[in-house]
């Protein structure tokens, strides 16, 4: 199991466990993290699983590629350097303990 901590816009935190190989989006959906809507189911055809990777984790998580960057144009919330689509972040042991911040709006 890999642990992921979601930080809600109001600062509240929730830590959940997920199996390596799944995505942060899937972990959020499986655990009722409602800020992650994931309307397209992880096909990178919408931007409703937008999240911000915590500064301490950006190197290990990696940056978005061009296709993901194009799709983030659809995000309702502010897009920052740390913005990612959570469906594109595959969980591995290396990401055990990862922290992601949830946007205040999700279209």
């Amino acid at each position: 199991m890999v642990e992921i901590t979601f930080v809600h816009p109001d600062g509240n935190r929730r830590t959940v466990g997920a199996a390596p190989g799944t995505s942060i989006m899937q972990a959020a959906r499986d655990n009722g993290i409602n800020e992650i809507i994931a309307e397209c189911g992880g096909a990178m055809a919408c931007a409703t699983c937008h999240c911000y990777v915590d500064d301490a984790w950006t190197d290990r998580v990696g940056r978005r590629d061009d296709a993901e960057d194009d799709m983030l144009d659809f995000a309702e919330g502010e897009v920052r350097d740390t913005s990612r689509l959570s469906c594109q972040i595959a969980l591995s042991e290396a990401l055990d303990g990862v922290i992601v911040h949830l946007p205040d709006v999700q279209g």
Partner: protein
Amino acid sequence: MAQAPINEAVSLADLARDPYSIYRRMRLETPIVEVPAARRIMLTKAKHTRMVKDNAELYSSDDPVTPMQRAFQAHTLMRKDGPEHRAERMAMQKALSPKVIKSDWAELYRKIASDYLDRLPRGERVDLFTDLCGPVAARILAHILGLDEASDADMMRWSQTLIDGAGNFGFAEDPFAKSDAANAEMNAYFDRIEARHRAEPNNSAFSIMLNAANPLPIGQIHSNIKIAIGGGINEPRDALATILYGLLSNPEQLEEVKRTEAWSDAFEEGVRWVAPIQASSRRVTEAHQIDGIDIPEGVTLMTIQASANHDEDLFENGHLFDVFRKKAPHQAFGSGPHHCSGAQVARKTVGEIMLPMIFERFPNMELVPDEKVIWHGFGFRGPLNLPVTLN
């Protein structure tokens, strides 16, 4: 091993007239069921429809015998999978993004909505379906696509002709003769305005595709625009009419929506309640089972989003319009790689611009009491009329 039960009794006419009571019984008794009238195995539960839409490898959109290809004179992105689909979809995605809507279009859409509301006569019976919902959807789409010169009537006629051709499963001659004529008109018009969009690049879908660093072949650009015409008028038209009906027939909810400015919630509930696109088809690429039912290779499954959106697993009293119901994910815009490209445009134009403006302009609007609103449709569904008095 078990084959899907077969429902010989239900006809397409039944489904067009009153689908929701039929789907409720199917969800309860035969959630996966072969319906010979539709020549498909229907999936009526939310978990199944979503699973199918999300897995494009096992459930392909590519239908080798679709009448859509004949109607559009092209193999379109709607019926493609994988990287080919993605490339064509992304080519015009930018024109449909919330950022471009905000930066380029929101003011124009407000003006269009306002102008169309100004035209409506006060104190009289008006059919908002024909006099507002259709024309305003056509006008806004024309600007998104870069087809500014096309009239509302032409946009609506092209759209309906393409839809009728794409749904011509019996391959009758007349609908294809009409879609051929419409294709010729559209191609000639697109050719006429191409130079303008090249000379003056802008954020319309046509211009973005023409001026891309690695543009699609012109034939694909044309077919993308046609897909947007076919898929971008009736849906916002039906969504707007459905939501207006839901609010007008539930005045206490309407008051609460106005008070709390819950227009986005009203939008989501309206498209959940009666999804403008009720069903989709996917071809099975490998034999397998769903919940113990055999699903053979090559069969066509029909995901019934309309039914998924009323599924008791997610929605209590799903047959009722209730803006303030407990939130749960609906599938009115589909799911997976073919998730509706226009979802955000619809949310902005219908939910954020049109709805509040209509009720601000006509605060005492009422349904005409003696005139029944007729609902119709199996694949696509919405009211056929919306008679109101504007006070």
